[in-house]
């Protein structure tokens, strides 16, 4: 056998146009131009309307479609009758939305964390049944939940009237599932190693829970708080069905009635205020998340991005 390199004429198969197009489109290691285009077009077209709506909250005139010049904070606090600051109905809806979101966060998060821990570690048929029960609200159409809750308060829990309390109960009910799913995802990524290590080092169960598990879960708990805030602020159907009238109206309900009639830019201003709030909340939560997971290595292979935590569907 000689050491000569065996050379054979190599035939490079010529690639047909179709194949080349496909490769160009779906090459995981090449430059995916088509995907880039779609993604950026999508991102821009999904955010642009919101930016434009915020832009019109600064409109000088009453129009929501024709830009009449920069009017400053006219619709936020300038206009003495119709601005958010001066219109008691709009103000009230802002506070009602924030109130419900706050209550929702305060109740759904602890309840959900406990439920997540319980469901993740419990075994048995009862556990799977509870798991099914927990997943139901995620996929139930809101109108079904709205109808069923309002009927329940009318006929079963008659001591609860349509009111902020009723709205809060409804919000917590559908928020629970989101919290469970997020926290459970985090639990799986943590694994049992740390708790077992703590136990080996002599910690009591409560100490383990308090000093090991809970801090490890903090990012997920934080994400849950933010998610619960977002979905509570966003909720329309349940708030409307359990509303007691103008006093219980939240921002989405106001936007809905205004959009069906003839809205003023003050509605844009109100909605923009909500966007500023949520942006601030995300910003803070992102910073806190980075702070909390600094130096942490994911226990499982693959990218465990913040989205997966907040993805809310890591079932």
């Amino acid at each position: 056998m000689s050491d000569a390199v065996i050379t054979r004429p190599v035939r490079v198969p010529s690639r047909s146009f179709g194949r080349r197009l496909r490769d160009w489109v779906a090459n995981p290691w090449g430059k995916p131009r088509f995907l880039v285009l779609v993604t950026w077009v999508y991102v821009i077209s999904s955010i642009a309307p919101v930016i434009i709506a915020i832009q019109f909250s600064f409109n000088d005139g009453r129009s929501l479609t024709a830009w009449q010049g920069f009017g400053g904070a006219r619709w936020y606090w300038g206009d003495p009758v119709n601005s958010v600051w001066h219109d008691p109905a709009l103000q009230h809806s802002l506070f009602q939305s924030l109130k419900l979101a706050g209550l929702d966060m305060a109740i759904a998060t602890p309840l959900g964390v406990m439920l997540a821990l319980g469901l993740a570690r419990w075994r048995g048929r009862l556990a799977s049944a509870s798991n099914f029960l927990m997943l139901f609200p995620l996929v139930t159409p809101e109108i079904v939940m709205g109808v069923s809750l309002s009927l329940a308060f009318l006929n079963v829990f008659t001591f609860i009237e349509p009111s902020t309390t009723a709205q809060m109960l409804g919000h917590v009910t559908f928020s629970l599932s989101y919290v469970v799913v997020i926290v459970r995802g985090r639990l799986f990524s943590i694994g049992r190693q740390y708790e077992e290590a703590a136990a080996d080092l002599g910690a009591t169960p409560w100490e383990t829970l308090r000093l090991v598990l809970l801090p490890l879960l903090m990012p997920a708990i934080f994400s849950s708080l933010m998610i619960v805030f977002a979905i509570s602020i966003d909720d329309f159907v349940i708030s409307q069905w359990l509303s007691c009238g103008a006093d219980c109206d939240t921002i989405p309900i106001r936007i809905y009635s205004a959009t069906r009639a003839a809205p003023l830019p003050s509605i844009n201003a109100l909605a923009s205020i909500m966007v500023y709030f949520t942006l601030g909340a995300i910003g803070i939560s992102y910073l806190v998340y980075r702070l909390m997971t600094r130096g942490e290595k994911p226990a499982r292979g693959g990218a465990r991005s913040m989205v997966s935590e907040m993805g809310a569907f890591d079932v």
Partner: protein
Amino acid sequence: MREHSGIYPRGLWQAFALPGVVWLLLLFLVPFYAVIGVAFGGVDPIFLIPVPAWNPLDWNADSVVQTLRGFLPGGDYWAVFLRTTLYVAIALALCLLIGYPVAYYISRHAKRTKSVLLALLVLPFWVSYLMRMLAWVNLFAPSGYVNDFLAWSHILPDPPDWLNGNPVSVILALVYGYIPYLILPLLAALDRIDKSLLEAARDLGASPFRAFLHVTLPLSMTGVLGASVIIALPMFGDYYTPNIISGSPTTSMLGNQIDLFFHGGPQPAIGASLTLILSLFLAVLMTYYMHSVARATREVRDE
């Protein structure tokens, strides 16, 4: 296999789960039974408010049967049911068509700009649905930017009226509104696919496209299914989107009928029956979703 190796006391997790389960039982299952009770129940003769029948032996199936008959071809609800199914199907298809490439790109490729893209992607999720609809309505109003652009660029010199009973607007609004709720779970699912599997496929000689077709796509199917169910089911009960975008009977959906029979009137039993039938129709999909979710959860948990 003993679970906790004795770290935690027995029954701890059951105790943790109890409050949440009780809450869901009381505020999710019981209300659902209230719907059944009202659907099979009667009506107070003076106030015309529903009087539910709790005992199955007292059930009066007239309303439910009458409503069911309405779903047969030619019945009262046949047209609106078809229309709703059509809208949801088209909207879902469009959402997947747009959402899957986006999710795929971000999970597989966007290395440097990944966090920026992620943030931008998540942003609409945080903006209230109603506000996005408000923004959409203003853009598509007769004097809005869309028509201005269409006229200026001569693509459509005489732009149609988008907001007057136009089914295209309603479907596009549904896509715009629900797509963030599809992309996030899809992204999470695609993220979870082990890159090494793809590398293995390539090493075994598959072209990039075949690797995608035979490895990525099948592995992402549960994610696709889950995400589709998460947006399709709520979309079925949507009634506010057609009201905001259109307000005309030609685009009304099933949710509008439920809304009508419930917000006052002498026939709450029909509203309850409609809700019941909608839920049962969706229950098939729901159950399938939960089975696959439970299976996936077990696989993950047993790793």
